[in-house]
């Protein structure tokens, strides 16, 4: 597909402005009524979902050209999908998120690249991750854990760690504790250690489809060779990309893919994990875009006029993962959940997605601080989430402003309730040395 293939979608825009707001039934206040970080920050219509489509339409119609300024606007977007969800309350014939992806690809095809994204792509090519870290150290986090190496052992479950968890040492206690929980529940878990690569989803979002294809093929062959029945990932980005972008590229994985929170909930319900300890805390839940609306499985292109598209063929964000983390929080004694205004399909993005974390840190920080303010407004003592990129966006935004507000991975809360003490960095380093 190309941008021109979405000309009807772009022309479909009635300029009703719904894409800029949470669905109107859900609008609870003046303060938290907006849904799109980009237009909220920059205000010109071109920064909204509809405005981006109209830039695309203008170019497809030959009325304007892809300039550096236009490319810059195209890249200043987290591809969080909030506009798409809002649009689809009323429309069956517009796939806004697809247009945004095609705009990225058009930029790359026309050589409108930005250095920060190029660095990510270079890192992917050299080291197989988006962080510029050495490939050889990808599995370092797991040293000392009794986990199988799927490169030479069969395992029922592939644990795909993802780039951020693999290299962000502050997240390692969360990660290691989670794997311990899975193992203690009797799962046959294996990882690829240094052979694990990025899922390639971030490359796809940045518009580098060729790169993304390579990583999808790599993942596909690894999964096929492993004989595993299930892929579990703690990375919400990876989860969304496996469920949506891989099939979109024709590289659907031949096994079931689950986010780790889904697996943990399953184990709790089966009685294989006991959440027994009180974790007295009033928390609010941040729905990561990639665990929520963007993880909705891929649906094949509708052939013909989308006006006639049936609802079961419309990807509108409803089939993301929303209830699982909320249910899991309910299982943790002492945890009380208080909801923010923008949740579920209409959740506000943390700011990190779509290459914005790498290229536009100021926009990322803006989005993250907006979310923290919303979390605070609920009276919650802390915010919980389940995406390493969200976690880092919040952590860095708070550090940048010298502010503090506790942000937990839901896996941390689960581990506290199970009674698993987080490992100290010394303990982890000890494990590494072994």
């Amino acid at each position, binding site marked *: 597909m190309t941008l021109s293939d979405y000309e009807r979608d772009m022309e*479909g825009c009635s300029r009703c402005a*719904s894409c800029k707001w949470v669905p109107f039934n859900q609008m609870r206040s003046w303060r938290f009524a907006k849904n799109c970080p980009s237009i909220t920050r920059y205000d010109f219509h071109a920064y909204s979902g509809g405005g981006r489509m109209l830039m695309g339409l203008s170019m497809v119609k030959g009325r304007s050209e892809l300039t550096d300024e236009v490319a810059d606007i195209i890249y200043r977007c987290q591809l969080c999908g909030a506009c798409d969800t809002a649009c689809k309350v009323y429309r*069956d014939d517009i796939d806004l998120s697809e247009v945004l992806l095609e705009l990225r690809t058009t930029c790359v095809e026309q050589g409108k690249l930005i250095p920060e994204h190029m660095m990510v792509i270079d890192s992917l090519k050299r080291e197989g991750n988006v962080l510029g870290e050495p490939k050889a150290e990808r599995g370092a986090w797991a040293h000392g854990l009794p986990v199988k190496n799927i490169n030479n052992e069969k395992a029922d479950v592939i644990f795909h760690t993802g780039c951020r968890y693999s290299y962000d040492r502050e997240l390692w206690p969360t990660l290691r504790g989670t794997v311990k929980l899975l193992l203690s529940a009797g799962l046959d878990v294996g990882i690829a250690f240094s052979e694990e690569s990025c899922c390639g989803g971030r490359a796809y979002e940045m518009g580098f489809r060729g790169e993304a294809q390579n990583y999808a093929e790599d993942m596909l062959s690894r999964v096929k060779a492993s004989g595993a029945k299930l892929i579990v990932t703690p990375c919400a980005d990876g989860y969304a990309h496996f469920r949506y972008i891989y099939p979109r590229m024709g590289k659907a994985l031949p096994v079931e893919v689950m986010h780790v929170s889904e697996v943990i909930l399953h184990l709790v319900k089966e009685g294989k994990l006991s959440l027994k300890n009180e974790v007295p805390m009033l928390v609010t839940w941040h729905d990561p875009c990639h665990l929520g609306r963007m993880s909705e499985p891929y649906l094949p292109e509708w052939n013909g006029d989308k006006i006639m598209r049936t609802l079961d063929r419309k990807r509108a964000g409803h089939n993301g993962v929303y209830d699982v983390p909320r249910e899991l929080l309910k299982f943790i004694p002492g945890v009380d959940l208080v909801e923010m205004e923008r949740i579920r399909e209409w959740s506000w993005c943390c700011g990190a997605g779509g290459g914005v974390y790498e290229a536009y840190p100021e926009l990322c920080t803006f989005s993250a601080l907006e979310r923290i303010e919303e979390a605070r407004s609920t009276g919650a003592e802390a915010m919980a989430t389940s995406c390493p990129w969200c976690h880092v966006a919040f952590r860095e935004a708070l550090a940048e402003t010298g502010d503090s507000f506790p942000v937990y991975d839901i896996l941390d809360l689960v581990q506290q309730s199970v009674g698993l003490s987080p490992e100290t960095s010394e303990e982890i380093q000890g494990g590494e040395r072994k």
Partner: protein
Amino acid sequence: MKQTGPSLISPPIGDEAYKDLEEAVGPEFVTREPAVLDGYAWQPLWNEGPEMWVHRPIAVVLPASTEEVQAVVKICNKHGLKFKAICTGWGALAGPRCENVVQIELRRMDRILEIDEKNMFVVVEPHAIGGQVMAETMRKGLHTHIVSSGAASSPLASATSCVGCAPDGTYMNWSSRNLLGVEWVLPDGEVIRLGTLGSGDGWFCGDGPGPSLRGVLRGRLGAFGGNGVFTKCALKLYNWPGPPEPVPEGFLYDTELELPPHCKAYIMFFPDRKSLADATQAITVEGIGYNAFKPGMGSLLTMIVPHLLHKESWKKAKYLKKAIQAFNYQFLEVLATDSAEELEFQEAVMRDEVSKHGGFMMDMEHTGMAEMIFWTFVLSSNYPIFFKAAGMFITAYGQDESHHSMVMASPDGEKIKQKWIDRGGILDDNADSGIHFMMEESTVSHYEEPIEFDHRNPDQTRTIKPIEMEFTHMQAEHCMESGITSPVMRKMFGPTEGFYTKWQKGIGNIIDPRGCADDYLYNAEPVEGEPLPDDPAILEMTEKLADIATKMAWTEDGPLE
């Protein structure tokens, strides 16, 4: 005022003017990037086509304050540029309609400045949208009128500049009547404050003490941006007896939230059009209803089963169509009251009038649709659904007259619509989808005939202008007000309506001596020799209209015999 070819692209703005704009609002809040400008030029709604583009603005600016708006307007005066403000941009009326227009995007002026519970008004900036205003006022037990473009639209824009009626008119009247104090940047850049605001007495009254220029400000339909920029205004608030934070589950048809105490949704059916008109007027005169609306069965079909209307089998479903048509004389009433006694009274009045006129009514809780109907109307969240079935819609007639004359005129509108459905030009929604709602305590009814079409289909877009012309012709024959926004038509019909155009232009010349406001839709003069569209249907109808206009014309001293 000339158009610049099919793509309507003006020459670029000069560097000096652009630099001035940058200095006025900050460089990051001005753009002349063509693709960005086209985001303001794509305006398919209320665009009679065949192109869905309007004029591309030469620059877009984002002022953050009244002072910055003034500065921008003065720069336009200095450099001989035109300007036009835009809020949320619902429809082509908001876009530039001539060349050399600087579009003033008011998105950064989005605050709710004050909610005065005691005196029941809210003070808003242009880009505080209806959904936001409702959310904040409902917390205080108050509600505000939202125009039928819905929660995404700007209450200030509707109140100051553009028509403004909706099904809530039965309780909250319409936009023009809800406007109180106003802050207005005139087209020469000066600021005027109207009503009590102008005498330093706050926002509570638009008519003084202090200057009262509400008629000049917007007239009946509004000046569509042609009279300057409105930067703040106060709007009346009304009682909201429901919960302070209604948060339904779901977005639209999946809405779930119990009806509040003493609230209901009813649908009533009548045997014929006259009974419908008589009963609904009688009900509304009694002050019954919070939202009231005569939907068309066709409109409901476009919302609920949009795919059906595209199928060949639907075209041939003669008896199904007749069966559906049998329910066309229907009326929806949303009741929101403060007590069981009040609800009982309202229900009793309705029951009595419905019975008296041979109709029957049904509590929508029996249909399972009460919650959805109640909340989507009260929260004005349903209106963009009109885009669903075909991609675009336009409404014809769109006029406000006495309730009976509007309801009884519907069949003529339906005939026009059916003709164009038969020609394949628009979506077949059974041609019975005329919608009505009331305001001014039921003395006035609003009637629109929604026409659904795909604006991406040239065969369909070509039909829109001729359809609109036919409806205009019908209006003229029915002696309805014209609501005309084209200079050529205004010139034609001005003499039939007391030479209003002459007075309008005279006022325009005083407040806009350099002609800087984009007033194409309001009081611009037609360009001599401007060719009419090369379409036989349009030419034929224009001739008919000219004939009517000539017969109805007044002299400047009074009506012709």
